[in-house]
């Protein structure tokens, strides 16, 4: 039997919500592949991301959910919120299970066993799966270039298991595996794995990008670019976790903007055709990291020197983005110009009693 040619979906880009001075979101698809009735925490960042992503990808989509919040909380008690096919897989199987789905559809369509355009196959891996246990499986899927999109919804920790440090947890981030104490006042000593860059560097034929829930249309367009790209794509999305970051639930989107404005989460794209990074994304403002840190309980223990360390880290990120640093941010990298977090001493005292 002659092989059947595979039709690929091409999704149009959304126009910017900023039309001159006017803010007006573009027309969004009516379809709702992710419906309410799930157990994610109020204001859940990953859930916001999940909704936006699925909205962008539409009905001819298959979702893969390795173990993590978006598995445990979303499909709780046999109550699934997915209006498109979704499958749980093991936390280390993010890339591989997804590859299996993609391979199956390649074969089934080619052999006439399934009729229709090649589905959008999306893996929603948490940063634990994506940066630690499932890293090799994702690398394998990217390397083999299956036509799929692998998203790391990056809430910078293992949240579902009760807030443990992952390789994406930022320096200074308090988790139950990286608590602050008199000997380790900064809590997490290690800097996060530069995951998306690693994916771009190692799999240059893939579309790789970072995004944040603070910029929904940018995120949705990157999802579509990733899906339109024939072959594997990788997207790392900042998705704040209200429970682990300890902030007020309404700030989920706000944090998504602040983290970018503070230079802690550079937004960029890797262009696989030109083989170069696109650093043209610019947030509306540039701010010192303390504006982002002070909204979150997980940084409440930080002393001035730790904040300065994070500012230095952010400043390096800005330089990497080829952004000229304002003097205020250079000053903010000097601990002399900073004060401890308001609750730093209280946090240390509590840490001793635990």
């Amino acid at each position, binding site marked *: 039997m002659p092989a059947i040619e595979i039709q690929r979906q091409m999704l149009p880009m959304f126009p910017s919500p900023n*039309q001159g001075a006017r803010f007006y979101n573009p027309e969004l698809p009516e379809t709702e592949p992710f*419906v*309410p009735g799930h157990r994610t925490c109020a204001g859940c960042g990953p*859930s916001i991301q999940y909704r936006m992503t699925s909205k962008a990808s539409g009905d001819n989509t298959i979702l893969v959910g390795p173990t993590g919040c978006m598995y445990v909380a979303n499909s709780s008690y046999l109550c*699934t919120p997915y209006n498109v096919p979704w499958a749980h897989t093991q936390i280390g199987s993010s890339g591989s299970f997804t590859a299996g789905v993609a391979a199956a559809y390649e074969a089934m369509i080619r052999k006439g066993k399934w009729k229709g355009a090649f589905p959008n196959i999306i893996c929603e891996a948490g940063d634990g799966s994506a940066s630690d246990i499932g890293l090799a499986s994702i690398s394998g899927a990217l390397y083999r270039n299956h036509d799929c999109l692998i998203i790391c919804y990056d809430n910078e920790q293992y949240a579902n298991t009760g807030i443990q440090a992952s390789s994406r947890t930022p320096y200074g981030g308090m988790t139950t595996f990286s608590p602050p104490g008199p000997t380790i006042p900064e809590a997490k000593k290690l800097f996060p794995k530069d995951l998306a860059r690693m994916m771009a560097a190692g799999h240059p034929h893939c579309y790789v990008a970072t995004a944040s829930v603070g910029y*929904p249309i940018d995120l949705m367009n990157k999802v579509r670019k990733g899906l339109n790209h024939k072959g594997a794509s990788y997207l790392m999305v900042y998705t704040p976790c209200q429970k682990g970051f300890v902030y007020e639930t*309404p700030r*989920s989107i706000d944090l998504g903007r602040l983290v970018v404005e503070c230079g802690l989460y550079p937004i960029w794209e890797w262009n696989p055709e030109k083989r170069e990074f696109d650093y043209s994304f610019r947030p509306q403002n540039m701010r010192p990291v303390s504006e982002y840190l002070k909204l979150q309980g997980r940084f409440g223990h930080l002393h001035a020197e730790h904040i300065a360390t994070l500012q230095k880290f952010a400043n390096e990120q800005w330089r990497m983005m080829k952004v000229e640093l304002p003097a205020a941010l250079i000053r903010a990298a000097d601990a002399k110009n900073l004060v401890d977090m308001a609750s730093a001493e209280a946090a240390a005292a509590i840490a001793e009693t635990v």
Partner: protein
Amino acid sequence: MSTKGTHIPDWLAVPFAGITPAPSQERGQDLFPTGNWRAIRPVYRDKMPPCNNACGTNEKIQGYLDLVKRGKYLDAYALIKEDMPFPSVTGRVCYHPCEQACNRGQYDEAISIRAVERFLGDLGQALPRDVVTAGRPNGKKVAVVGSGPAGHSAAYQLARLGYTVTVLEKSPKAGGLNRGGIPDWVLPQDVLDREIERLVELGITIKTNTEVGKDVSWDELKKNYDACVLAVGLTEPNSVRADGEDKHGVVYGLPFLRDIGMGTSKVKLGPRVAVIGGGNTAIDCAREALRQGAEEVTMITVEGNTSEMPCVPEDLHDMVAEGVELMHGRAMTAALGNGKVEALQLCRARFSGAINASPIAVDRESPAERFAVDNVIIAVGQHASLPWLPDEFKNERGTIRIDRFGRLGDTNFFAAGDVVQVGSGQPLMVVNAVGDGKRVAFNVDKVLRGVPLQERMVPIDVITDLARMNMTYFPKFPRVRQAMLEPASRRRTQDEVIQAYSEEQATEEANRCFSCGTCNACDNCYLVCPEPCIVRSVRSNGLYKILVDYCKGCRVCIEECPTGCLEGVPELDFDTGVVRMDTAFAITPGLHGRQAEELRRLPDKAPKDIENWR
């Protein structure tokens, strides 16, 4: 066989291998409603935008700016016309209290609302048929005395309500202060003529050269009409009570402008003209004097500096740009000259603001100055002339005594506009007169329909605090400037000084509107909801719905609402102990049997259309 004889009780029924059928897109995963997690419920509650609130006739400014953003110009025009009969006029002459109130003013620059209104007004002018039609005739007749802004507005609203309206105007041309008080280079006469034609198109009869008390009596009004709206304005200029005011060459502001407007002016100005007064009429007079051939025009004000002057700063600025000189802190105490004014006697004075005496305190101690002039134009306000009005309806200021509904006692006479003002004699802004006329027209309607007159009881929530909105969504953006004729070229002509917006400019400017406190269907709440439990059947202002069965009360939507129309209300009313939560944990034993059954039937179900999603 270990499984022989086993059975799974109904309450533990689960679908095959735990494979769960997809929930309905419309209903959500209704096995698992999460609404009972919520402590605070988001609600859509549109606030009063400050512009709408500040507008004398409460134009739905935010509303029409929103329509302009969408390119729905005709709808925008129709929306203005609900409250404003002649946007082409106010789009030129209005002192735009809306712009002073505009929240954007505390952010970068206020929206140029008047310019957008003019764009829409001119669009309306060009229409072969107006979008507004007269109401179904109800057989009742109403007379409106006076065709100025208040009378025009009252007549217009009454016609829309189905009344047979007759406007009585004592001048040869209708328009009142719109015609007589506003120079051509601000409001070209043909624009006003077109708006008056629109009244006639609504079936309104306009009788010019008809003066109450002369051509028609109080009793005739009472007899021939079911109701009557008196909007005769303040027709008589105030004197400065100076010696020699009757000298030749002394003219008064409003008659000066009115005669030019009516084309009946006989005044010929000499090269040196003084204008007495610091208000808007005085400014118009000074600028008109230049256009009437004066070489040196000096404005003499009792106020000590420009900031004290009761006028619109932009107009003052434009006047100075045209070359009018200012002299502050002086009062005119006499016109000197032999039969014709040759000079003014000026004394140092200040504005005291006294209510029980003259508000102007003249310093009689300092020496008087002599100021040579060929003409003097006195523009210090007007007063009413109501010889025909029964005394019982006159108040101590000589204007009409009305109740808070604009009604004269329990008669079917109403009054609106300047003639009911108890203020200093400064004319109302046009827009306030229009609002007055509108409200009175509605009260006339209520009285004639036998509906009780009641004041509005619901408090309005004007949103003026930017912290109630989310400014992240509004980058700073400069105002779109209206082009103006250069001072050198404009000061001698009757050409319109301020130029109209193009369509692009109007849209660009309207785009700057925050839509304060009002849903403008930006879809942001819909997009950022993590559940998502915000739904809409069509994308339209205010048609968003929150599925309270699912909303967990995270308030991201409230935080991210750019305009601030979303707010949170506590789910638990601690005062009454009433719990408003109307959902509960719905997973009860046996519920998954439904899923099992659904899954069994799934292969026979019609497949989902995945080719044509959108």
